[in-house]
């Protein structure tokens, strides 16, 4: 049962083949067995999960059958959960118990999903390998010497190793899609503003967006149906009706126009990934799609602009961690300034401090125009490239990452790590929906394919991903060491 998709689990629960309590216990047992090695979860909520599962079973017995009722999930530890620790992967919040639920958490609770626990992540979502977590690195179940990607690495591993049926994540520059690619699962970032950010600990507020990590595009549609929608508590959430994203999954792709950016098949892309994506594109041709090479002329500036905008916004957002109202405070402060400085220096890790410094510098007097304003202008150019491209094509497809999962400890230089997100970052800057799905294998490791749509084309992106998964079985490939039911 644990290897089944959310859609299949819903059928099994409805048919009475298994109860939510039994299923939840199975996942909890697997977490006990494997989490020591994989480090996917920071917090496991066994008792409350079993209580939620029992409630779900009772509701089902009374006739309720909503799609996620009784389905066990994991939340990235960036979402505030009432009464359960929310660390954001940081020492700063190692003891923080939010007095409220994030809107995303509330929506899954209302849908009857069972929360198994909170997953590991790069500290404050700043990383592409899950190595910056205060709670230690997460291991990739395909090869535990390798990273799972980041920052939603714990969620990606929990799905890939069947330590949950589905998980939430957040994506500021690729943090859902890149770990999904490295772990051989499906990860979807909806359009900016589609999902409420309320109760989601802020990193870069004009880029952050929550989304699902799961086994298939169909599951992503089921989860997005629950997550999406206007939230009056988030002034940037969009007042636009939520479609039923499962309704168009089966639409034919005959006549679909796919754009392939030449910049995504250039220097730096490894041969194995390139070959895998080119073969995947042939599947789309078999489905009746046409492939056109497109130009995103400012794509090469996306990483530079991002590393101004994201740190600038982070430096402002993270100024709230001052040791006064919640979280970590240093021992025996000499005075108020000493308390601020030592609290922040001891509470934050190296990468977080580095980004706060870069952001502070970019926003400091005399540098604003040269950095932040310049980056926002580049952001406009990047957005315009996409607008032009979507005049010609329906979706844009390329690799999610230039290579497969790399070994833990091998990328120690920050700039090298920042270039990890070279294909995903522009999508955040433009606020577009993007998904990564398994497209094949290279050197025994999963390769992710990146499908990007125009503003609010969530349904189209999920449809294009789903049709590929109807033709191929790459999404069913499992890491052998953890994939089998015990």
């Amino acid at each position, binding site marked *: 049962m644990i290897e089944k998709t959310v859609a299949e689990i819903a059928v099994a629960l409805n048919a009475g083949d298994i109860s939510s309590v039994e299923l939840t216990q199975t996942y909890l047992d697997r977490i006990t067995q494997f989490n020591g090695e994989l480090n996917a979860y920071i917090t496991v909520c066994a008792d409350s999960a079993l209580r939620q599962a029992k409630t779900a079973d009772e509701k089902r017995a009374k006739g309720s059958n909503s799609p996620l009722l009784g389905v066990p999930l994991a939340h990235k530890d960036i979402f505030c959960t009432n009464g359960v620790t929310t660390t954001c992967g940081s020492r700063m919040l190692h003891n923080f118990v939010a*007095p409220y639920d994030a809107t995303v958490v509330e929506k899954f609770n209302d849908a009857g999903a069972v929360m198994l626990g909170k997953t590991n992540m790069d500290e404050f979502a700043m990383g592409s390998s899950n190595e910056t977590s205060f709670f230690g690195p997460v291991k990739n179940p395909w090869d535990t010497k390798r990273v799972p990607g980041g920052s939603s690495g714990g969620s990606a591993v929990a799905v890939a190793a069947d330590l949950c049926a589905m998980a939430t994540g957040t994506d500021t520059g690729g943090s859902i899609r890149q770990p999904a690619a490295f772990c051989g699962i499906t990860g979807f970032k909806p359009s900016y503003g589609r999902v409420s950010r309320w109760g989601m600990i802020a990193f870069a507020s004009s880029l952050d967006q929550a989304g699902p990590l799961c086994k298939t595009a169909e599951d992503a549609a089921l989860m997005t149906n629950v997550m999406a929608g206007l939230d009056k508590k988030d002034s940037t959430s969009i007042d636009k009706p939520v479609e039923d994203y499962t309704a168009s999954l089966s639409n034919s792709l005959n006549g679909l126009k796919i754009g392939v950016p030449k910049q995504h098949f250039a220097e730096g892309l490894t041969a194995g990934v390139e070959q895998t994506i080119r073969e995947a594109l042939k599947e789309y041709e078999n489905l009746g799609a046409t492939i056109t090479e497109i130009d995103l002329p400012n794509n090469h500036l996306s990483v530079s602009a991002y590393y101004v905008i994201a740190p600038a916004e982070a430096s402002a957002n993270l100024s709230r961690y001052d040791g006064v109202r919640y*979280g970590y405070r240093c021992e025996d402060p000499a005075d108020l*300034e000493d308390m601020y*400085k030592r609290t922040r220096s001891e509470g934050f890790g190296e990468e977080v401090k580095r980004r706060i410094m870069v952001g502070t510098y970019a926003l400091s007097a005399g540098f604003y125009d040269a950095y932040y304003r310049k980056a926002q202008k580049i*952001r406009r150019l990047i957005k315009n490239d996409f607008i032009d491209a979507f005049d010609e094509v329906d979706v844009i497809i390329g690799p999610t990452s230039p290579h497969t999962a790399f070994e833990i400890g091998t990328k120690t230089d920050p*700039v090298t790590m920042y270039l990890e997100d070279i294909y995903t970052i522009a999508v955040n800057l433009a606020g577009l929906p993007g998904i990564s799905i398994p497209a094949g294998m290279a050197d025994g490791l999963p390769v992710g394919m990146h499908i990007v749509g125009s503003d609010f084309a969530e349904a189209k992106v999920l449809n294009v991903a789903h049709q590929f998964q109807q033709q191929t079985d790459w999404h069913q490939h499992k890491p052998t060491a953890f994939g089998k039911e015990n």
Partner: protein
Amino acid sequence: MALDKSEVEKIAHLARLHISRTEAEGVMSRITDILALIDQMQTVNTDDIEPLAHPLDALQRLRADEVTEVIHYDDLQSLAPEARDGLYLVPKVIE
């Protein structure tokens, strides 16, 4: 653009971070590398380009000025490292 040590110290102070003497060198060189990456932006002319602050160019939504939330002081102050009688306690500011 390369940073010198005094600039690193100034930025650290603005960000309320403590950087020790032994760390300063490493921090300086890594931030200089990052600024070199960022400076690729300067290769493009953007004189007539309008900055993009929000990916959808959306404006802030307004709402009626109504009471929507009640503050639960006890719940919130129970999270604080030090709080008493409804106040957050910090080291003495004024002698």
